[in-house]
């Protein structure tokens, strides 16, 4: 879909002159590289691209992109991006956020951006910890998590970001992880192409405060056994020999079964375009956390009118019906009288 008029670029063109200042070994580096290397392929212009972020380690992302960008305030990026997106439908807007930014202080903005289906691509770097404030538990930390602020263990049930996004009426919901550039780029490409809000959860390793949080499923040797790739129209199978599969129990729940035992035809075929988000939600609940087989890929991708476009249409309709705005007529719209000299 590359527009021939768009100049050919390389990763270098998309990298700003600012020194990247995440901790050495941080998963954010691989996400940044994946994005910078993907953008030249997307047929978009640097000047039409905007990265908006809130606060947190992930939120430094815009400084490293040679595009327009705003590093705003904690949790508010989806709201700010909404104002930008509805007034500038010509722009390509990305929101970069973290689990604290998006799901704690900014939870309200996230769910409403998703509900409205604003045309933005949201990358949620989930490392299940507060990094920038040096190691407190986050809304995605597992129950019992011992951190500086929970020395006796966290009492809280974590959010499942995929379940949350689906519950918030998101039209595009996907998960990827920082150890697989190819998979990240494939998901980012899909998210970018989606019209409306695209929500991508990225399992991201914080090697300083929560090292190895996802290693049991994303480690090179663990992936085959623990990552369940979702492919539209394909039976949901995984394992080195694709010997495991997802089946629906009679009670409606999904569970993992051996293909050899249940038969190929019993394996659930993934349909990301199902209007009803129920099955996608069930898939999001398949793993209780990143320590047992976990689906990655696109959970849901459905069409729904995009908010900014719908708003623009209302403006056009009004202008067509009433003609362009006439200030003189506006000021007289409440009835007037004249005082003669």
């Amino acid at each position: 879909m590359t527009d021939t008029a768009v100049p050919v670029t390389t990763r270098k063109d998309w990298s700003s002159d600012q020194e990247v200042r995440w901790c050495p070994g941080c998963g954010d580096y691989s996400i940044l590289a994946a994005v910078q290397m993907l953008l030249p392929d997307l047929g978009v212009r640097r000047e039409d691209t905007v990265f908006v972020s809130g606060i947190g380690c992930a939120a430094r992302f815009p400084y490293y992109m040679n595009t327009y960008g705003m590093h705003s305030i904690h949790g508010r990026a989806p709201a700010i991006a909404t104002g930008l997106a509805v007034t500038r439908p010509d722009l390509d807007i990305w929101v970069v956020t973290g689990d604290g930014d998006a799901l704690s202080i900014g939870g309200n903005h996230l769910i409403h951006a998703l509900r409205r289906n604003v045309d933005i691509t949201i990358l949620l770097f989930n490392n299940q910890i507060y990094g920038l404030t040096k190691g407190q538990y986050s809304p995605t930390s597992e129950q019992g998590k011992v951190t500086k602020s929970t020395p006796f263990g966290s009492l809280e049930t974590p959010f499942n970001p995929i379940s949350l996004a689906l519950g918030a009426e998101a039209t595009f919901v996907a998960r990827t992880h920082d150890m697989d550039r190819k998979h990240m780029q494939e998901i980012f490409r899909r998210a970018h192409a989606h019209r409306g809000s695209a929500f991508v959860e990225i399992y991201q390793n914080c090697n300083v405060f929560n090292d190895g949080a996802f290693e049991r499923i994303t480690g090179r040797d663990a992936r085959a056994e623990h990552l369940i790739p979702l492919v539209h129209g394909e039976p949901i199978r995984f394992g080195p020999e694709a010997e495991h599969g997802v089946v629906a129990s009679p009670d409606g729940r999904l569970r993992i079964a051996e293909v050899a035992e249940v038969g190929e035809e019993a394996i659930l075929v993934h349909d990301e375009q199902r209007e009803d988000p129920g099955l996608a939600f069930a898939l999001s609940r398949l793993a209780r956390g990143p320590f047992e087989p976990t689906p990655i890929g696109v959970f849901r991708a459905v069409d729904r009118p995009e908010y900014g476009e719908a708003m623009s249409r209302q403006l056009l309709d009004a202008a067509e019906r009433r003609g362009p705005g006439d200030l003189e007529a506006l000021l007289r719209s409440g009835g007037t009288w004249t005082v003669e000299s």
Partner: protein
Amino acid sequence: MSTTAEHPRHQTVELDRVVIRFAGDSGDGMQLTGTQFTAASSLFGNDTATLPDFPAEIRAPAGTLAGVSAFQVHISDHDILTPGDAPSVLVAMNPAALKANIGAVTAGGILIVNVDGFDDRSLEKAGYASNPLTDGSLASYTVYEVPMTSLTMEVGKEAGVKPRDAERSKNFFALGLVSWLYSRPVEPTLEWIGKRFAADALVLDANTRAFRAGYNFGETAELFESTYQVRPAPLEPGTYTNVTGNTALAWGLIAASHRAGLGLFLGSYPITPASDILHELSKHKHFGVRTLQAEDEIAGIGAAIGAAFGGSLGVTTTSGPGIDLKAESIGLAVSLELPLVVVDIQRGGPSTGLPTKTEQSDLLHAMYGRHGESPVPIVAARTPSHCFETAMEAVRIAVTYRTPVILLSDGYLANGSEPWRLPDVAGLPAVDPAFAPAPGEGDGRAFQPYERDPETLARPWAVPGTPGLEHRIGGLEKADGSGDVSYDPVNHERMVHLRAKKVAGIAASLPPVDVDDEGGPGSAPVLVLGWGSTYGAIAAGVRRIRARGLAVAHAHLTHLNPFPPNLGEVLRAYPAVLVPEANLGQLVRLVRAEFLVDARSLTKVQGQPFRAAEIEAAILELLGVDPATTAPKEDVSS
């Protein structure tokens, strides 16, 4: 009925002005009645000023004092400044409305009561031990008892309306009666009823019949000895409309965006009494106005900041607790140095406070309510129609100086209305957004997002989509010029000074503060300094002092930060300065701190605007004059 009401059986008494208060249950339609009476009077050519006063509850229990809704209108044959200190006519639809308002009515005033509403149960609900209509307690008033409910139901029955629904037209009966009593033309009201209720023929018919019945009742029932006539006021020639503060403010924003060639974006969360601006702007999509009813106050301003980054005129509107919630985002806008207009319709606080009552208590919040050194320009409207030009001025400052601007209005201005002489649209000020242009070929130098205009200290407004100006901004401290993140201590201090200097420098673009002093600047012994909606009461109070043959000066501020450049000079020219405010003394603190003058404070925090008499009394006290020894030489009205 005819437009030139002839009343052969009644004599017509000429009045120079009258203050009427309509009062009833919050479901009785008193706001609608008062608004239409005002509109008809304005169309007739009177000067008008209004004071709606309603409870925060949508429908408090019927018949209780808590549920009383009132609308006061002042109509006159000369220019007036306030809705009147005290009504001389009270229309009371039930005992609670009478009880809640009787204390305000002038001695010997007229009471027009819906006698049908005075049953035992309603009297009890209002807390009356005996019926005031029969126990002699209203002997000092002229009381007209009119069976409004039953007469309305009678005509409703003719229209074929169910009795329950017919009763609801009784406010139109009251409107008809008062329109007759004050010789108002009926056509404009009939026309308005026709438009307003066009969707429901039955309701339209019932309301029309009730209005006519009320009018005819005055004419035929031998209850009233006379009708009254308030002749048109000699207003400045021109075309007028009646406008509330919130409508004028919304129109001012549209006008400013139109003149600047900027798309208008409003991000707002519903909150009393600011919501009407959201409602009004939502109607005008054909002007390219985009409105977003945000998920909360923070999202409202956040979205406006996003829109501003994209090159739109970003606006957010709020009141009370909403301005607290926006504080962090205003700080971001200070750091980003993007144009943004934050409208605060002040109401009683703290916390939820008095949502429907007026107050001026957010000035210091606007000034200082953010962490860090975070200067924000502040402008304040003084009358309902002044909200129009104040909105345009806020936009001028925001766009020219690339800064958030706080516009202060309040509940009194928001809902109050006055006749407004329409400005010449072509002559309205136009501000140039002056977006940063794309660099030309060979411009080797990297774009400097925080390079400043030497005169205004404003930074470039470089909007996404412009090739070659890609840049990142944010809430972290910026390096002077490059805008890169900088933790350098000396740079931080320089930036703090630059932001402060930029805002202070706006003063250079402001007109000097105008002083109303009959003997020339500095001649009166007392200067009354006001800001915002105290304008009418102060100007009227000053008129009263002058009618006593005494001198007093009045200056009124639109610009609260920075102050007009000559303010210090003006204040120091007077031996005494009085600062009336609907708060505990906020402007007075600022001027005392800024100019080291011994300004005195006059405060009122009752959720109600000042009365002219209160200002008058305070000035007399400051002058050391006994009110009894200097009776006014002429009757002056406010």
